[in-house]
């Protein structure tokens, strides 16, 4: 059986076919969760599927900073 790829970027799924053969199915790997650039917590409201604007909150720094960090930054900016 010619091995389709050596790259490890695909996920290997072992399957047994009805004919009793063991085959390997290659599936794409899932993206890792987005994290806030400041507090490193997982971002809420960041989707993997959907149109570009649906993939992140419509807040400034949406998809880059979490809501708490944006709030903190805006306060500091206002008080400066």
């Amino acid at each position, binding site marked *: 059986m010619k091995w389709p790829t050596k790259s490890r970027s695909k996920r290997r799924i072992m399957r047994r076919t009805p004919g009793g053969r063991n085959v390997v199915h290659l599936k794409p790997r899932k993206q890792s969760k987005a994290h806030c650039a400041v507090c490193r917590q997982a971002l809420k409201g960041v989707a993997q599927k959907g149109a570009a604007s649906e993939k992140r909150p*419509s*807040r*400034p*720094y949406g998809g880059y900073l979490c*809501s708490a960090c*944006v*709030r903190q930054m*805006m*306060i500091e*900016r*206002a*008080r400066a």
Partner: protein
Amino acid sequence: MSLFETGRLCVKIAGRDAGAKCVVIDVMNRNYVLVDGQTRRRKCNVQHLEPLQTTLPLTKNASHDAVTKAFAELGITLPVKKAKTKASSKPVQKRKVK
């Protein structure tokens, strides 16, 4: 006397308008005020607002034009919203019948 009185200039710190300057138009109750300015004219929780030192000479429920003038004095120009042309008023293109 709370900070959030009519005319108080604030910055919205949460939501879609985060970072935008707005002025308190009307105080609804302890938690909610009506704001206008760079943000949309909307009800907003005081926890999402950061009050600033300045206050603007505005009356209660001031109109958007009054707010625009007051902001102009501060040197902040507010975008003028174009009136939405009704869909029906647009000329209907005839589709070529093949």
